[in-house]
């Protein structure tokens, strides 16, 4: 059993979590080019090495961030998303932009 340390629930079986993809900035859909949007939606960095990703503890629907080595399968660090996203994100209205 592989253990993932959930910032909310403590160490749990990794089977209780889902992987949510790399943490990255969303371009503003109202102002970015088509190429930028394609890049954001379908392209992957798919790094062999240390990555920073979204994970979700399914039972509690809690999303957080994990740093993980994709070559060694080691989980280096997990922490609440509030460590990265300090300001309120406003998705409403044209030109408001995404998460910074």
């Amino acid at each position, binding site marked *: 059993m592989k253990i993932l340390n959930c910032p909310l629930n403590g160490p749990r079986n990794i*089977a209780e979590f889902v*992987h949510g993809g790399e943490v990255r900035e969303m371009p503003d859909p109202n102002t970015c080019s088509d190429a930028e949007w*394609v890049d954001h939606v*379908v*392209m*992957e960095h*798919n790094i*062999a090495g240390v990555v920073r990703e979204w994970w979700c503890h399914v039972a509690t629907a809690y999303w957080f961030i994990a740093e993980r080595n994709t*070559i060694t*399968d080691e989980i280096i660090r997990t922490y609440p998303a509030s460590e990265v996203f300090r300001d309120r994100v406003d998705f409403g209205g044209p030109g408001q932009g995404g998460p910074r």
Partner: protein
Amino acid sequence: MPFGLLKYGFSKPDPARRQLPARPDLRRSYDVVIIGGGGHGLAAAYYLSRYHGITNVAVLDKGYLGGGNTARNTAIIRSNYLTPEGVAFYDESLRLFQGLSHELDFNVLYSERGHLTLAHTDAAMRTSRWRAEVNAHLGVESRLVFPDEIARIEPTLNLSRAARYPVLGALYHVPGAIARHDAVAWGYAIRAAERGVELHPMTEVTAIEQAGGRVSAVVTSRGTIRCGAVIQAVAGMSSVVAKMAGLRLPIRSIPLQACVSQPLKPFLDTIVVSGSLHVYISQSSRGELVMGSASDPYPLYSTRSTLEFAEGLMGHILELFPFLGEVKLMRQWAGITDMTPDFAPIMGLSPLDGYYLDAGWGTWGFKATPACGRTMAALVATGSVPDLIAPFALQRFDRFAMLGEKGAAAVGH
């Protein structure tokens, strides 16, 4: 040691025969460099040398030939896909597979078994009907069968209504087959080498150089080689190698595990697959049950095995074949798949001139080996994209023209 044996060993008229030539020194320049010495890369080399007269070719691999995903798949060959583009492509590959032992004069142990994709839910029945109709329309032999007929096709399968997920029906694909996957790589390698293709195992690519928007050289652990064209055929490491060429791909590297049981007397004729239970199982020609399941739950470049995989898979296998309860597992392993957003491969041109992509092989790469090798060779030799692979271009993502290949093994129903 018997004297006669020793004498034979040193005999001049009967020298020991090598199937593959020893690795030569790396030359300074080649017309075509193929990165990746698996089935795909070796097939492209073979078709280039055999049908296009291009023999100044080097196949590079950081490990040994056929040691990556070619050795790690479950060797299933079928063409009962869902999209018309996918069906046409995989059916051409199946047709080439049927004649491959003759083509290569090398036995790849092609064995036609019939392929049952079980449906346990109404949704899976609907997809099966859909696939049967698409297949029939394109001339591929697939039809919907129900439990009475399934019992005749595969008598050992548990069709009890008391099962947790009773079998409601199946998509029966008569030409479904298995082959010896290693032999496919060896056969292509031997025949390509006979025509002058150089095989360079243990030669790792570390950088790709370009000049004026065109690929110009490949830097390897054994020196730099100039080249006119490069084919990248390194599924599992596609993003890493493409990055050297300055390219980004819509791929996540995700392990796919498989395992085999101890050898048993032949009892399982068909290849049995269940998308709902995430199971596929066939019996190899040496009696082992070759079994696989869904892809791993998160991206990884490590080929470690997990207990969760074996536990989950066996729970479902025992539901389909309860009498296997006492059978031992012998080996378990993983390969790294290139998962694309639409479960379809990426073949053809790239934004870098002279750099050709053979990537995006998720759970569907082995069966594509001959058709992919042949069309990639034609593309490199003629410069025009064969119709068969045009829909699989990387550029489809720019237009959001995804293929939605719900017939792929990794797709749950």
